[in-house]
């Protein structure tokens, strides 16, 4: 039997992009040679069979999400590509350091902004930027959350530009999702490439649920011996429901909905078959707006009436703290580098993407003149919604955005269209490069933990720069590989010659 070998790297085009797996000359980057060798040793049939069996495993375990725009609410598997994205440990260590620095600064910012406000008094950030943000919560003023921590779980979005620089694109301090995909993808990948996996000494991610539980228990307000931790979900119709359930199961804690909780006698309780049970820590996956109809949106049916009162009295901990969304405002984001210098007196390790603020006349003029080159984003949207990718947009779409910007300049920012780095995926009939980002997850408890690697999201549509799952994105496993080399490395560099261009 002859091997069909269409799916080979010799046809692979690195293109004019930074490729995470290959240098522009087409040789595997450090850490990627063993993967390269393993993949080239497979026939097309084998590679596709691996891919199919991974997809089947994901479908059967119900690792699915729902798309809001799909009225039928049908579940889909999050498209998954079995070629892992490799991150060399040397680079990873720097990223990890940068993330820690950033999250410390952001936490100090949140303490400050709902407290003394020195950063505003010192005019590092203009006051009106904060008070005009939809996610600024006056109700959080003077709250001191347990242990002084606001952003317990963060899912920072990183992207790499054409020159190889890794930028922070978004901080996501509210309810970042996706970590369950990292854990489940990894489980599937360990079955797909077991030997490769152990050869490369890929950094483990499976202890994430333990770290999460440790962090949550650390927040328990009083000296409770066995704090009752719960995960609060909006319910099965939420697109991330699978994850909520998954994390509760992995931590061995109850998964509750708003209707399971009730506030009385100054505490939060859950309804159980043996009566009411007090709750100490809530890992809430419901947005601020919906968490307590008495404090925020009165029409919310998902939340727990009176929860915020109990929280303010320090009788229940919430992770993340209400109010953290202020730092997710894309105008506030533009000031994070300044926060790092202001609070820590350090230079930022990871840079922001250069950002134009449309509320500033000079920036706005520039943005309006260059709509065909820039990416415009609504200051308070996430998930790839409310966005214009200028170079890919029609003149009509650009005109719409122009009007939107002119009508509400505070609500818009713009950034240069980054040539996001690419990784190979298994395409219809060959291996092709697709754009990716990277979302590492950070836990802020007694210490700060960064999940090694994180979620690599990939824009599966050819040429697309939008990686969000709600917009046709998929995912890949991300492998942080150790410094140790084996003989594969040198071997590969002499053999490999995919066609760069």
């Amino acid at each position, binding site marked *: 039997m002859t091997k069909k070998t269409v799916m080979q790297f010799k046809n692979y085009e690195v293109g004019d992009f930074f490729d995470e797996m290959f240098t522009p000359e087409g040789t595997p980057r450090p850490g990627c040679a063993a993967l390269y060798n393993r993949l080239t040793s497979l026939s097309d049939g084998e590679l596709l069979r691996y891919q199919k069996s991974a997809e089947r495993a994901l479908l059967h375990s119900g690792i699915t999400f729902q798309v809001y725009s799909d009225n039928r609410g049908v579940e889909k598997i999050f498209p998954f590509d079995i070629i892992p994205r490799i991150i060399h440990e040397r680079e990873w260590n720097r990223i990890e350091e940068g993330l820690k620095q950033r999250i410390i600064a952001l936490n100090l910012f949140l303490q400050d902004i709902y407290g003394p406000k020195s950063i505003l008094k010192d005019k590092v950030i203009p006051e009106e930027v904060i008070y005009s943000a939809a996610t600024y919560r006056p109700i959080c003023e003077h709250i001191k959350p347990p242990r002084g921590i606001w952003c317990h779980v963060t899912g920072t979005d990183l992207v790499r530009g054409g020159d190889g620089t890794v930028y922070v694109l978004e901080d996501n301090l509210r309810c970042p999702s996706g970590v369950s995909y990292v854990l489940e993808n990894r489980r599937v990948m360990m079955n797909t490439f077991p030997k490769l996996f152990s050869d490369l000494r890929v950094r483990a991610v499976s202890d994430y649920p333990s770290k999460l539980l440790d962090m949550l228990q650390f927040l328990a307000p009083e000296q409770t011996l066995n704090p009752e931790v719960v995960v609060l979900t909006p319910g099965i119709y939420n697109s991330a429901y699978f994850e909520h359930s998954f994390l509760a199961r992995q931590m061995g804690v109850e998964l509750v909905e708003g209707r399971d909780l009730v506030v009385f006698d100054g505490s939060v309780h859950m309804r159980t*078959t043996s009566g009411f049970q007090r709750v100490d820590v809530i890992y809430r996956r419901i947005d601020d707006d919906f968490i307590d109809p008495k404090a925020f949106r009165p029409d919310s049916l998902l939340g727990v009436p009176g929860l915020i009162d109990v929280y303010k009295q320090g009788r229940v901990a919430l992770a993340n703290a209400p109010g953290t969304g202020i730092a997710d405002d894309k105008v506030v984001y533009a000031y994070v580098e300044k926060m790092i210098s202001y609070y820590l007196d350090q230079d930022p390790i990871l840079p922001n993407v250069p950002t134009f603020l449309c509320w500033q006349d000079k920036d706005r003029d520039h943005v309006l003149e260059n709509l065909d080159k820039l990416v415009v984003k609504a200051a308070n949207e996430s998930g790839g919604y409310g966005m214009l990718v200028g170079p890919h947009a029609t003149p009509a779409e650009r005109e719409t955005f122009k009007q939107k910007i002119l009508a509400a300049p505070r609500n818009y920012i713009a950034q240069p269209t980054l040539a996001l780095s690419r990784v190979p995926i298994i395409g219809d009939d060959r291996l092709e490069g697709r754009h990716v980002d990277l979302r590492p997850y950070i836990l802020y408890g007694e210490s700060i933990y960064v999940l090694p690697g994180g979620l690599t999201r990939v824009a599966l549509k050819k040429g697309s720069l939008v990686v969000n799952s709600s917009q046709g994105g998929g995912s890949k496993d991300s492998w942080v590989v150790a410094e140790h080399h084996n003989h594969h490395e040198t071997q590969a560099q002499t053999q490999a010659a995919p066609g760069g261009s």
Partner: protein
Amino acid sequence: MLLSRVADSMYWMSRLVERAENVARFIDVTWNIMLEQRDESINAWAPLIHVTGDYELFEKKHGEPTMESVVEFLTFDREYPHSIYSCVRQARENARTIREVISSEMWEYLNRLYLKVSDHAALGTQAVLDSHPFFTEVRLAGNLFNGITDNTLSHGEAWHFGRMGRLLERADKTSRMLDVKYFMLLPSVTDIGTPYDELQWIALLRSASGYEMYRKRFGRITPLNIVNFLVLDTYFPRTLLYCVTKSEESLHRITGTPLGSFSNVAEQRMGQLRSELAFSSAPEIISRGLHEFVDLFQSRLNAVDEAVYKTFFELRPTPSA
């Protein structure tokens, strides 16, 4: 300790899988009767609709019951909440809300079952009638799911809520099937002794998967013994007495109250129902009227279900002053 909502979902997940399995079995058995039926005037499909108690709804949609319309209604009707499709879909929705409580095997199996039923629903009723193993598969699926549940989930509170739901549903279905078939074959008390259609009685026993076990115990087919068996047998797992007895056991395992006493209204009603059954006899049931007996049984069963809901699922705070 179990969240009330979780207990509720566990109870309903099991009930709905049981319901789907029963409907599939009823269709399967009816299909087989019809293959052997020589008398064209007999419509064996109509009783299936009577069993559901939703005859009016059916009539409004389809008029006279035919094989196609009955199978369509009971199998794939998305608007009918007790069709196989709706039951499996809702069972899976319930499972989805308690994935952190049930075993992954349970979830994966139920998820697969749902995908299978959806696929068949897309093919349509005619395609399913042409290749009828679908109903056998669903029957088997119910049993497999119960087996997976029993073997992969700790037999703690959640399991007991599930078992209670499963058995109460089963008691309900066995009693309805008995009622409808009995009425069809022996419309009034005085009809006892008229020549009966043996095939139909056998079908009734098969509808409860009890044909072989009945034969082992009684040999000859008589209406009295069939009532004796389906209502009062203490060993066969689909009889009314068996289902109620085991439900009561589960209920007491949940609360810790010793059997023979009660600490809430659910236990009280269940205990009353069980003792009533346990101290009945088949001749007595028949002489008083089987239909009246089943009617009363059904309303007591509903009262138990209601009491379970009030006691465990619908909890209201009574804040201290």
